[in-house]
């Protein structure tokens, strides 16, 4: 099944990309990828987080430019250097964050950039007629062209974007996780729209994590892994289990130190924690334990950590640390109780870029341990952390911005070690650091657990999660959908996070 090409070879594809490559500092996001799309087919892209499917989509949308490779549209070579190129080539994107302007009407949104009218005047009657025709053609007649976009639901916004794509004469329509903000009935409706588009000879690229949808929609399915195309299969040629097997199978690196100690008494206990993003979270993390949190982007992992740390409001639930209840919705209270968090966005939320390495290291100490900074103890404490974690810096007085990502991250972890931290929440702690620094950070996490901390570790990289964690909890749609032991396989984790489809929680009016 590696390279089945099911479509009549005499038929020329709508879109063909050959030898696509794209690298970011430290990462080869896409390498030697060939991809084609025929008129009247739905071509699904699947793969783990970071497998390369989003990069491919962004390149086709002209949002990112490929380093290598060529594109053909209807047999003609085309450039995809920017969104305008891609639009001119007939490619339209229905992104997750929908590009709808609230202040305009439905028809004004659909026709934006290509408005009817003369002498610069906007012909709103003609616009409404044009837009209504497009909406009717995709079965969204109940949407009125002169309705304000402000009050539209996520599904209706998608319809507006699809109508806009049709207005632009798009022949290739890319949908990136289109069902994630939708309810079941809306999903059915979207699938009907997709059927209409397929029947009208459009080519549809459909990115999803949900096997059920891929099974139902995909005429062909291309699997990505580590920036490579693993293979393309036709409908029915592979079971969901086959596809999962194609997505995984990376070698485990020998980056992970062996664990000695056994988990002790419960340190962190979370019961029934809920807010608009997470539902009924129960969690127990013990002394000396590393608990890995798996789940797709948007599954509520970050939101769960933020709720425990008091950074996001919770509507119900309890958090206790060593049997003492922690007041909710307060970061200072969480810190006083010994909870520490290393956030996902290091640059914007982890470090204070204008401050020195020393001031960043002591930022918790200064506020919670010793408000009247005594130079002696303070600089001793800083020095101890710098040495313990092996932060490589010319001097502690230098700006933290000058340090590498890995060394910055060590400081972000280290600042918590100067207070009475008992629970360490880590959100993607190795994102954007190089392999050498990753190994050091693994060692630090391991050592801290050995010393008695309870560690909660969120990561999108399954190998590091499986390599480091004693136990894994999988999240999906804001809920915990299962738990696995630390020697689970990647297949087991992926099956839980993808195949087990929980209903997504919907938040606010504009998801």
């Amino acid at each position, binding site marked *: 099944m590696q390279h089945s090409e099911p479509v009549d070879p005499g038929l020329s594809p709508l879109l063909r990309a050959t030898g696509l490559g794209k690298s970011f500092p430290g990462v080869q996001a896409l390498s030697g990828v060939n991809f084609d799309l025929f008129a009247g087919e739905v071509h699904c892209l699947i793969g783990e987080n970071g497998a390369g499917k989003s990069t491919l989509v962004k390149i086709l949308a002209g949002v990112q430019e490929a380093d290598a490779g060529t594109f053909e549209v209807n047999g003609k070579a085309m450039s995809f250097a920017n969104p305008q190129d891609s639009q001119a080539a007939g490619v339209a*994107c229905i992104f997750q964050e929908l590009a709808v*302007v*609230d202040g305009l009407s439905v028809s004004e949104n659909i026709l934006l950039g290509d408005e009817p009218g003369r002498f610069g*005047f*906007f012909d709103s009657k003609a616009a409404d007629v044009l837009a209504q025709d497009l909406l009717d053609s995709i079965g969204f007649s109940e949407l009125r062209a*002169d309705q*304000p976009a402000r009050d539209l639901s996520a599904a209706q916004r998608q319809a507006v974007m699809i109508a806009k794509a049709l207005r632009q004469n798009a022949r290739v329509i890319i949908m990136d996780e289109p069902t994630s903000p939708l309810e079941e009935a809306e999903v059915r409706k979207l699938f009907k729209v997709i059927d209409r588009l397929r029947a009208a000879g459009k080519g549809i690229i459909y990115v999803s994590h949900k096997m059920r949808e891929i099974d139902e929609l995909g005429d062909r399915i291309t699997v990505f892994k580590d920036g490579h195309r693993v293979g393309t299969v036709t409908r029915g040629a592979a079971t969901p289990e086959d596809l999962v097997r194609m997505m995984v199978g990376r070698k485990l690196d020998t980056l992970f130190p062996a664990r000695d100690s056994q988990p002790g008494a419960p340190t962190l206990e979370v019961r029934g924690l809920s807010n608009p993003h997470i539902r009924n979270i129960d969690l127990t993390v013990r002394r000396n334990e590393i608990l890995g949190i798996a789940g797709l982007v948007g599954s509520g992992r970050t939101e769960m950590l933020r709720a425990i740390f008091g950074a996001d409001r919770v509507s119900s639930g309890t958090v206790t640390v060593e049997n003492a209840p922690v007041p909710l919705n307060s970061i200072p209270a969480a810190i006083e109780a010994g909870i520490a968090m290393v956030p996902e966005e290091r640059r914007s939320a982890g470090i204070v870029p204008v401050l020195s390495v020393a001031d960043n290291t002591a930022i918790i100490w200064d506020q919670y341990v010793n408000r009247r900074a005594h130079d002696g103890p303070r600089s001793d404490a800083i020095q101890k952390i710098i040495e313990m974690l092996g932060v490589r810096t010319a001097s502690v007085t230098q700006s933290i911005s000058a340090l590498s990502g890995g060394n910055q991250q060590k400081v972000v972890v280290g600042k918590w070690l100067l207070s009475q931290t008992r629970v360490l929440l880590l959100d993607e702690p190795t994102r954007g650091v190089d392999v050498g620094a990753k190994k050091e950070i693994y060692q630090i996490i391991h050592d801290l657990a050995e010393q008695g901390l309870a560690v909660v570790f969120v990561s999108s990289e399954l190998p590091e999660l499986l390599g480091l964690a004693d136990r894994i909890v999988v999240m999906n749609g804001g809920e915990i959908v299962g738990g696995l032991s630390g020697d689970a396989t990647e297949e087991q984790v992926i099956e839980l996070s993808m195949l087990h489809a929980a209903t997504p929680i*919907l938040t606010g009016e504009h998801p």
Partner: protein
Amino acid sequence: MSDVATPHSTAGMGQKFLSNRNMVLTAATLAVLVLMCGVFATLTDRFLTVSNFQNVMRNAAPVIIASCGMTTVMIARGLDLSVGSVLAASSVIAGSLAVAGVPLYLAFLLAVLFGAAVGAVNGVIIAGLAVSPIIVTLGMLNIARGAAYLISPSAILVGLPSGWSFLGTAKVLGLPMPIVIAGIVVAVFYVMTSYTTFGKRIYAIGGNEEAARLSGINIKRTLLWLYVMCGMTAALAGVVLSSRVGSGDPNIGVGFELQVIAAIIIGGTSLSGGEGRILGTVIGALIIGVLANGLNLAGVEPFWQFVAQGLVLIVAIIVDRLVQDGVLKMRKGA
């Protein structure tokens, strides 16, 4: 997500909803204006007279004129702090040219073109280099003010030709000239924002810049034009104002930008862009004008007027915030 189940029930109401929402917001600001007029009318019997209303409008005209350009900039999520200084520079440029014997209409025209040039510089730096409009136009505020003093160091210009005051004091069909000019500017900007393709694109840029970009709109060029127009209206306001006060004066218009911004915010233009109405801005300018005039007639110390103006601005911003957060729901059935 409950919207999904209800499109049929809301369709009829949604039909004219855009204008409904705007009408409700405009009516609310208008109500505030009427209320204020009522209060002042009871405080002093000199307030509710035709000549006093003409007086208020004439005084408000420069703010209204400059606010039109600034409203479009702010709808596109920009800001121009230099309008007060541009107004002063335009005043002394027109005055100096007139003193030097340049025909008046040409002096006025060149002053307005100067405003366009300043706006172009603002626009090129802000749009072209993606720099914060606050900082760029704050710099321009100082530059233009400095230029005004450099052109006319001796403060007030003397020796102006006799026709100088025409734009400020003449009457057309019984209406003072400043009101007529403000009316024309308002009409032009109202049509532009409500009925033209360019107008729709301003809202799109302010409301969702990424959507506008993906729709193929040239954002930089649009922003550039908005700043040019903003500079022009500020300079036109300067010409009208100095014509009315009978001189070119580098000292005028200190703090003018705050009055303009206050008028716009009070008028319902959102600080976060994507929303705003020219007519709302006009009402906002009149609220500020009535406030100054009424307090004056009621014998309140002039310094209190600053306090009152500041309070009105802060209240308006809080209301803007609440509307944005959806606390004051301007939704179905509004």
